[in-house]
């Protein structure tokens, strides 16, 4: 005998707190999920746990001291963060950066992009449930890049190597050989990841069709980086408003049209191959020369003015809005965080998905909370 229920089975929504201390949130990020069984109905993100007031502190320090705060803002891609900052100072102070310094800068930011994406690959594998091997592989290759950075700058994470005008000092004499060595390891690492993840059954089943966002929505939310390119928008500052020497090398903007978590992974994987290509071309064209302009004042001062400099960091557009009223320190410094804008779309991408998938969507944005909170 079949008893038919007179009315729909009703469940009560549950408020589930995730974070701020939880491995899945990649830092101190908290979100309150309203869940109906396994399905996410609403997400309220809470950020600010890592807010240190870097912008205010930069207003009290001279231009060179501010570089250290940029490292600590975007600590997984410190070279990219430094680049935006020094370019902003250079634009106001009208400094001409020598060619050699520009090529070296380009090598460093692309290597940093590789190390940052490697970090993503490892951590994201764990989010998805492919535990162990990818994480260790990612760490191995990332270590090679960090070792190289340590040889150049003396520090593994907080490099403070770029200076307004050029570089702190020239790279070691074996720099090119060491870079090529590192690239060989990284190229192997990318191939390994391709083999381990791209066609991995668990990985594909868990990421394909999850966390979709359309191109129009991604633009409206102000997303950038691989997160927007995975939705089919070829938005890449390196291509649209070339800086450094990006116009002189051959590379492609990687886009995908699916707009899901898997597409965001594929975008990053493709970008790593492009970064290797860029670094190789830079190494071929690196020539001896000056690394700082000939006439550099001991104390850097800028005339009154303002500039908004944007560069393509691994997570998207890293912008620095610098206002000067004369003198040797910023009047106002605003860091445009790529992750902050990307994170705004989290709710849009996660509502209607399962709880476990919401974690993957968060992982696919690749957030760095210290950049979000500044």
């Amino acid at each position: 005998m079949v008893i038919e229920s007179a009315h729909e089975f009703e469940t009560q929504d549950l408020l589930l707190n995730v974070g701020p201390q939880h491995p899945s949130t990649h830092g101190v990020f908290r979100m309150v999920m309203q869940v109906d069984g396994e399905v996410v109905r609403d997400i309220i993100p809470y950020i600010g746990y890592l807010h240190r007031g870097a912008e205010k502190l930069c207003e009290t320090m001279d231009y060179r001291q501010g570089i250290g705060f940029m490292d600590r803002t975007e600590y997984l891609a410190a070279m990219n963060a430094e680049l935006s900052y020094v370019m902003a100072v250079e634009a106001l102070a009208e400094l001409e950066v020598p060619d050699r310094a520009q090529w070296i800068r380009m090598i460093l930011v692309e290597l940093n992009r590789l190390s940052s994406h490697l970090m993503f690959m490892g951590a994201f594998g764990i989010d998805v449930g492919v535990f162990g091997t990818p994480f260790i592989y990612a760490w191995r290759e990332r270590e090679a890049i960090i070792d190289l950075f340590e040889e150049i700058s003396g520090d593994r994470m907080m490099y403070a190597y770029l200076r307004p005008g050029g570089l702190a000092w020239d790279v070691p004499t074996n720099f090119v050989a060491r870079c090529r060595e590192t690239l060989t390891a990284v190229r192997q690492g990318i191939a390994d990841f391709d083999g381990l993840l791209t066609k991995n059954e668990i990985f594909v089943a868990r990421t394909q069709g999850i966390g979709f966002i359309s191109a129009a929505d991604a633009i409206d939310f102000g997303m950038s980086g691989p997160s927007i390119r995975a939705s089919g928008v070829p938005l890449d500052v390196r291509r649209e408003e070339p800086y450094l020497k990006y116009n002189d090398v051959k590379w492609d903007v990687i886009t995908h049209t699916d707009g899901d978590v898997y597409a965001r992974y594929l975008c990053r994987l493709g970008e790593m191959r492009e970064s290797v290509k860029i670094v190789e071309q830079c190494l071929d064209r690196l020539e001896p020369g000056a690394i700082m302009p000939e006439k550099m004042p001991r104390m850097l001062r800028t005339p009154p003015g303002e500039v908004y400099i944007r560069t393509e960091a691994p997570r998207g557009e890293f912008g620095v809005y610098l206002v000067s009223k004369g003198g040797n320190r910023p009047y106002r410094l605003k860091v445009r965080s790529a992750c902050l804008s990307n994170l705004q779309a989290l709710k849009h991408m996660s509502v209607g998905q399962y709880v476990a998938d919401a974690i993957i969507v968060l992982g696919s944005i690749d957030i760095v909370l210290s950049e979000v909170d500044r």
Partner: protein
Amino acid sequence: MTSEETTESTEAAAPTATLDGTIWAEVDRALSGITASAERGVLDVIVHVPPAEIVRALKALKADATLKFDYLRSLTAVDNEADGIDVVYHLYSTTARHNLTVKATLPPTNLFIDTATSIWRAADWLERETAEMFGVRFNGHPDPRTLLMPEDMDDTFPLRKDHPLAEIEILQGEGMGYSEEDQ
């Protein structure tokens, strides 16, 4: 601040002459009926718009068929002390690939401006941050909570120039639970 220079206007002497070849002509056409002025920045053209007209202006810039500013890069504010607070919008067009900086200057006595969240959803968190840091109130904001600051810290604005750079103990006073004898 130690700068000896006076904070005189950086506006060029003859704006129309220096704005040749920029998108100002297009912007001026799109902003017909709004008293906007422009100056040339280091990279982008800076357009000054009266705060009361900001939403109308931004909507017109987004809707215009040739300008199509569909992407809000950044939204922030600058505290110019007695000269009020500038709310600064950095716009970009993903199709036409050009930039524009829009500024609205709020007098210190009236820090209200309409929200841009209906134009770009990107403005949501950026306006919340600007509100808590500068005390600018965005009329009609759908979610006017604090973003980075603690929920109860809504009466002091850290990025204003008059806000002291001090130890958290001094700012929070007795709230930290330290008494004079403990130290």
